[in-house]
């Protein structure tokens, strides 16, 4: 069982991502609709894995990713985004994202990335 944080301003996007995470694994999931929620929730919830959208009103995913990595340099953040430009991918990887998945989420890809993150020792 793992603790998973999902941050996306779209309720539908959060629903679609949650549907890709196996329910029988008993993961504890907390969600938020803004990067500021992620930054606020991270220290108390201490998620094993965070799924984060990039384009959000208020604090966007890039800024939240940078802040979370400052709070916890071992944080495993998987970016889930529709923005698939090379430069965007390079930027989030430079900021320390664990991985990047394209929207809409696909069950196999989400589970593979989640399993990979959970199997990776925090560094």
């Amino acid at each position: 069982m793992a603790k998973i944080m999902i941050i996306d301003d779209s309720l539908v996007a959060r629903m679609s991502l949650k549907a890709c995470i196996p329910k029988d694994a008993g993961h504890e999931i907390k969600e938020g609709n803004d990067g500021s929620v992620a930054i606020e929730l991270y220290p108390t919830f201490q998620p094993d894995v965070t799924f984060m959208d990039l384009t959000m009103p208020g604090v966007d995913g890039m800024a939240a990713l940078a802040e979370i990595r400052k709070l916890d340099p071992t944080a495993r953040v998987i970016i889930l985004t529709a923005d698939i430009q090379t430069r965007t991918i390079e930027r989030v990887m430079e900021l320390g994202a664990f991985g990047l998945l394209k929207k809409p989420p696909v069950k196999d890809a989400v589970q593979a990335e989640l399993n990979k993150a959970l199997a990776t020792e925090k560094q």
Partner: protein
Amino acid sequence: MSNPLRELTELEKDALQEIMNIGFGRAAADLAEIINLHVILSVPHIAVLQSDEVISYIHNQIPDTTDMSMITQFFSGKFNGGSFLVFPHGEGRKLLRIFDGEMALLGENYDIDVLEKETLVEVGNIIIGACVGKIAEMLGDVVTYAPPRFFSQEQIFETLDDVLNESDSFAILFKTVFNFEQYNVSGYLFLVSQHSIMPWLKQAIAEFLGPYE
């Protein structure tokens, strides 16, 4: 009094907005390849307007309609209607500056108005294609497109009036923001359709949401 068959619920609007953002992600990648700039496209606001509200909405949002321009592209399928990408005052010229380097290569043998029009048509075609195409694809439909057309300020309201005056029409408004690295260019995208498609649209969104609920 509101009629649930003529309106979308908050969840349905959220689903459309998310679909649009996914479509915009593809459009951004396509545009970035063409102009070699990092592009951010987002849809911060979505609204469903009745046909008689569209013109006043544009006037409220864009008080100065000087130099406003619009790209129009009609599409047909189960999801059918017209898409109208409106660029407020000066936004078209801002887009044109992105191509400054290429324009310099053309020397003086070009007409700035023609180039602006061509640029807007090309950018509009990509954005509209990505949005409408993605909505159709994710809702299990396939659409065909008429060629995109450019309308200058003096033709815009007449064109919109013609389309909106068709009986039973409504508009889904997506306020769109385009950010081309240092250039902030914003625009408004309206998809105008008939209320007769609403049962299909609601059903298609329900099917899209089905696996997630």
